[in-house]
């Protein structure tokens, strides 16, 4: 395990270097000068945002849901509706909307006078083009649909310049909220008409957002500048005119300690994605910590019922109670992180508190294993018919805290008589060995969504679903709950079904929640004010300004 040791040594060295950076940074001073032009002192100013990756491509459908590019898409594009951190839906480019009784037909009424930065009108035709692009992608160009767009979509038509009629082949209560999903960015039809290679060049991109792309260099930086004639911001943000800031420079700095040093010396105003353990120190120095939670599933393990020993509900239930989530919160995160209350994040409007159903109880966990026939041997490991009670955990390479969590979980399980191993893979190997393998017993999952209706298309194999638990369509109760959620035409009935679903999935030990997820960590200079976060945990700099 030399490799591991080297990596650990490297991590330690970087940690020391980062502390030096912190101390050194105290001496540095922020030299932000916001040029006060006009009457509003908030006007003007340039900010620098240091990001740890600029992700993959700039083809809108492929990257708008990326944790990296999503930051930039959010500033240069608009959406039809705005969804806030609590999941509340409000008008944006769509001024109002109606739906029929069974939620299969929706009519959107658009704001007038909205234009893309290339001068094209954001009218009904443009919205139809976008809806088709999100739902179907473009097979000929090798462009995929956006994930989580309702698969029930049939088509849309422009009734007149500002009216769009959208049809579905089944009830799709989640359609309107989904329009506020990070994939649903409105793109100029002229950009959509380009080839994939041309779409990948961000300088060809035209959206209708408060900022436009001034310049960019692949894998290095993206410079955005304010669009002066912007006048259609979401009312929910309390502003509809042009942005305050003159420019935002997104710069890739892959080394975390360099990002911290640049922030504390005033070279940058926002840094993205550093380890939770660094946050308290920065908060003490007066930096603003932004750890918005997105609407979606909590962070946890989805259990594959086809992998032994998880075919036994008693074992799954034992597992549910075997994890000390408080210890994980205390060890891996800061006190700003929250315990999971169920399978969905607690800010989802339909969420309800199910904490008791999966509370940590080592005694109960041990009893359940006894009941399942797994007997504790003299070496502290449980066996049954000569088989050892064993499991392998695969930390999610997309989450930096995942391996620390799995180390703790493995200790907690070992105390109960499990034989646990933790196997780490990089992103590409993980895809091959873990995500693609039908026998992976526990798969660490989290997923953002805007609307809880999405849940239905994920849990079973119906409708191209992801079949999270390997049950296919064999579980009647799950199928029934799925259909009630998918086909609901009334939000109250749907919330009831979601509540029942949570109880069922937790009691059956199909999903083992760990914590509420924060996948985007922002640290910003105290000068930068007015930052808001949307329902998918991206910062909006539209309303942000620099204080003198």
């Amino acid at each position: 395990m030399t490799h591991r040791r080297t990596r650990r040594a490297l991590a330690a060295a970087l940690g020391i270097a980062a502390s030096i950076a912190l101390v050194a940074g105290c001496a540095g001073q922020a030299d932000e000068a916001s040029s006060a032009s006009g009457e509003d002192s908030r006007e003007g100013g340039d900010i620098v945002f240091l990001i740890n990756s600029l992700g993959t491509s700039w083809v809108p459908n492929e990257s708008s849901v990326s944790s990296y590019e999503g930051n930039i898409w959010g500033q240069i594009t608009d959406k039809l509706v705005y969804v806030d951190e609590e999941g509340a839906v409000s008008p944006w480019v769509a001024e109002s909307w109606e739906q029929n009784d069974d939620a299969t037909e929706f009519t959107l009424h658009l704001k007038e006078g909205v234009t893309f930065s290339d001068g094209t009108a954001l009218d009904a035709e443009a919205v139809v083009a976008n809806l088709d692009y999100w739902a179907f992608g473009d097979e000929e160009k090798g462009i995929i649909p956006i994930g989580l767009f309702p698969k029930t979509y049939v088509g849309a038509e422009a009734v007149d310049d500002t009216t769009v009629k959208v049809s579905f082949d089944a009830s799709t209560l989640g359609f309107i909220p989904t329009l506020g999903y990070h994939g649903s960015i409105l793109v100029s039809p002229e950009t959509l008409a380009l080839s994939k290679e041309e779409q990948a060049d961000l300088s060809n991109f035209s959206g209708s957002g408060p900022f436009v792309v001034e310049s960019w260099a692949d894998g290095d930086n993206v410079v955005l500048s304010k669009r002066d004639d912007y006048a259609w911001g979401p009312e929910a943000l309390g502003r509809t005119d042009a942005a305050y800031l003159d420019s935002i420079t997104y710069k890739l700095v892959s080394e975390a300690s360099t990002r911290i040093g640049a922030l504390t010396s005033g070279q940058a105003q926002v840094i993205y994605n550093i380890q939770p353990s660094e946050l308290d120190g920065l908060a003490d120095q007066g930096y603003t910590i932004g750890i918005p939670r997105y609407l979606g599933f909590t962070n946890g393990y989805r259990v594959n019922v086809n992998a032994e020993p998880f075919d036994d509900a008693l074992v799954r239930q034992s597992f549910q109670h075997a994890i000390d989530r408080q210890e994980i919160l205390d060890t891996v995160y800061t006190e700003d992180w929250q315990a999971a209350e169920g399978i969905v994040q607690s800010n989802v409007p339909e969420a309800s508190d199910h904490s008791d159903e999966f509370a940590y109880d080592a005694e109960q966990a041990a009893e359940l294993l006894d009941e399942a026939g797994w007997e504790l041997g003299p070496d502290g490991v449980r066996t049954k018919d000569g088989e050892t009670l064993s499991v392998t955990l695969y930390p999610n390479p997309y989450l930096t805290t995942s391996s620390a969590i799995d180390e703790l979980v493995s200790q907690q399980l070992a105390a109960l008589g499990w034989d646990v191993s933790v196997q780490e893979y990089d992103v590409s190997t993980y895809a091959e060995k873990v995500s693609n393998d039908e026998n992976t017993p526990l798969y660490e999952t989290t997923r953002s969504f805007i609307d809880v209706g999405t849940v239905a298309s994920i849990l079973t194999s119906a409708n191209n679903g992801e079949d999270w638990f390997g049950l296919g369509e064999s579980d009647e109760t799950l199928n029934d709950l799925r259909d009630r959620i998918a086909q609901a035409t009334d939000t109250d009935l749907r919330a009831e079904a979601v509540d029942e679903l949570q109880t069922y999935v937790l009691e059956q030990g199909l999903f083992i929640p760990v914590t509420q997820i924060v996948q985007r960590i922002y640290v910003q200079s105290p000068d930068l004010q007015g930052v808001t976060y949307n329902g998918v945990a991206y910062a909006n700099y539209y309303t942000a300004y620099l204080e003198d």
Partner: protein
Amino acid sequence: MNPTYPIYALRRLAQAVVVVLLAYVFTFVVISVLPGDPVSSTLRNPENGFTEEQIAQIVAYYGLDRPVYVQLWESLSRFVVGDFGISLRSSLPVSGTIADALPSTLALAGTALVVAIVLAFAVAYGTQRVPVRYGQGLLRSFPALFLSVPNFVIGLLLLNVFAFQLGLFSVIDPNSGWATFFAAVALGIPVSAQIAEVLITGLDHEAEQEYASVARSRGLGRTRLFFAHLLKPSSLPVVTVVALTVGELLGGALITEAVFGRAGVGSVVQSAVASQDLPVLQAVVSLAAAVFVVVNLIADLVYPLLDPRVSIVPSSPHVARRRRRTADGPPQASGPLAKEQVSAS
């Protein structure tokens, strides 16, 4: 110059082309053996929520579902006509990605090489000039010290002091003069160690030669002796070492670029490796192979200028190399490079 030189040069050129092509094929095979394909592993990011069907569609678009030999043949035939294809990660033409990254890395590596050579010569000069009691021993330990400090540590220290404390440069504009200079210092320090080591050994050897003693006995000053007599013969193996450090400069650039927030070939390689971006990796490997071959060719051309006794034997480049090295040079140089540099006659 030897009249058979053109034939020799052509042979070397043909060899170079074969080396580059082999590097290309080798990269392809290695990456094809790795599990997974680059496109689907990117798309499988759980946050994307793409179905297997959608992923298969994209994999087919890039032709990654076809047999490996078909992919290799197509990729190779494109490469021969200078087409590097489209990046699997960004969907942008690979040639553009490389062209964007190259200037910054060339500036960094070039400056680092200058820093390394200047530093090496300064240390080597010191070891001949500074008397033992005034710390010559300390100077002699510098190369070992330079080698043992990882360049990211040097980089972070320089960054903290000169960028974050003194504000001489900013990570936002990593291609400015100061930013390039300090990144080059971080990269150049470890590289200078080998150059200094070889040079010191050479100087020590020359200083013991009879002609040096004669010159000293005639009252020649240490400075004159160094520049007029010792430096030139001692520099011969340095040329070989400098040519070999090119690879190290490229490798070190990866780390240095990450620390200093520079976009360059290093960061292109990093993201290409992470996303198994085959077309980009192949372009970079071929480029690196080409640079290495060219630099070594230049080293071979510089040799006769430093020492007229070096001859080019056209019959076999192999022999030419061996003969050339037996012509002159210090009998031993320390370190693993010794065999490469010289062999005593």
